[in-house]
């Protein structure tokens, strides 16, 4: 069942993305890791679409891409604004709110 490989790959990518969110400091990189997670999902969706023999999965992948693009727009705007204020894109520097 070769499809399993795709799924496993997607899971690995998802995990890499998730771990990346945890270990990377740069907000942009963190964000990219999240994109990676989304795209691993896309892979999963397409794989399942293939498995079930419908195109639903593929269509969903398109939806995800569109949403991800919107997310990029919003995310970059936010990150930019804080970067301009702080001159730093490290997520660890944004640490005024706590406890």
């Amino acid at each position, binding site marked *: 069942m070769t499809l399993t490989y795709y799924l496993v790959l997607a899971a690995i990518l998802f995990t890499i993305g998730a771990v990346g969110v945890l270990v990377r400091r740069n907000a942009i990189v963190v964000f990219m890791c999240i994109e990676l997670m989304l795209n691993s999902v896309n892979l*999963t969706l397409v794989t399942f679409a293939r498995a079930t023999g419908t195109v639903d999965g593929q269509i969903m992948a398109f939806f995800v891409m569109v949403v991800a693009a919107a997310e990029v727009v919003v995310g970059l705007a936010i990150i930019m604004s804080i970067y301009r*204020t702080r001159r730093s894109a490290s997520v660890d520097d944004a640490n005024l709110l706590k406890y």
Partner: protein
Amino acid sequence: MIEAPDLSLAALAPLLFVFGAACIGVLVEAFAPRDVRHPVQVAVALVGTGGGFVSTLVYAATQDLSAGGEITAAGALAVDKAGLFLQATVAGLATLAMLLFAERGLDPARSAFVAAAAVPAGSPRDRELATATRVQTEVYPLALFAVGGMMVFVTANDLLIMFVALEVLSLPLYLISGLARRRRLLSQEAAVKYFLLGAFASAFFLYGLALVYGATGTIRLGEIREAVGEDGGGTLVVLGLALLVVGLLFKASVAPFHSWTPDVYQGAPTPVTAFMAACTKVAAFGAILRLLYVAFGTEEWTWRPLIYGVAIVSMIVGAVLGLTQTDLKRMLAYSSIAHAGFLLTGVLGLGADGEGSGLAATMFYLLTYGLTTLGAFAVLTLVRDGDGEASHLSQWAGLAARSPLTAAVMGLFLLALAGIPLTAGFTGKFAVFRAAIEEGAWPLVLVAVLASAVAAFFYLRVIVLMYFSPPAADGPTVGVPGIPTTVVLAVTAAATLALGILPGAVLDLAERAAIFVG
């Protein structure tokens, strides 16, 4: 020849109102002259949300909903009774939140929102703008989009729509969290955190969606139930369910997915916090209810222990962590986490296949909690010092001596949040606890009552400060609210009392609305 999908315009009218208003808002932003922009935007926003609210009610009142509701938009949306109730709740609360957004009388700079979000905080230009009376009006269309997303969210009949709605409601929220006029650094930090964590959470949701799709071959909620009901929950389904729920619990700020809540609630502009606390909670729980009721109603015994566990964790985390908070907004954030736990006891009351009274109870609780918390945040906007809102607890000492009415209204909301009888909070709590006990979850209710006792401490502490402490010498001033805030306070306070003393009609409505289709 492709058939046009069946669209029930009547059923979609509320959504159209809101999204339409949002689009018009964008156009207004682009074309209307600056000096009329604010009133026009406010009018558009109010018409959008208010129209959404009214049209929901009109639809519910005029349509024959004996079948529970209708599935429309090619099966994407389930405009059913519960969905309508939740939509109306969201739209109603959003209308009130829009009024808070529109308040111009409190801040000397005439608005709670930053004049130019692109200007770096702390720069000379920013300082110049901080005192200028220039207002910025993007928040209205943004908020309207969020409201639209929420209203789709609670009626989404398939997982993809739910995901899209999740993003539609989230993305504008990320943005407007960062738009505070004062303490901009905090606001921006809140936005970043909210955005990164929110995106992270939606990735989980999405992966869950993919797994469920893989396991069942469908993303329609009703079809998922059929598929699951046939062959039981395979590992993929269970894993998918877990990830979907994680994504939703994040939005509902349920521990252990709550960690963004205090930071964002504290950092965001208070009207936005109020909006989030009230509307997002309703939307997120609406989606949770629908997901668990429609798609996994037959899998009750799978998700039950999960909800049981996170409910306990959430109540304890919210109640215990709230004890030592010194910032009122942050305290209310922890209170919101605790309340998420209480709401989950209601979710547990859904029972097998939604037979329990949990749906009605949770919906009612959402309404009462939304009103109360909205009111509480509205009071927060009144108490100010030179640097904006005076949200530090110590600044509230002796407030009752300065402004008895403000203190009284705040006291009412706090008592309601604590669940004291004759306030809406009690009725809601009673309803969800009853639903949970009916499903045999009395140990959970026991934990819940103990947690509410702990939580009561920090609500009481505010009352102690307001009423029983001598006023601080250089205490904050209590602003005179303009008409919008006054309306919000009046409506929320009246509703908090009314739903505590005579909740019958609304309870009955929730009871009759407690049906999902799909």
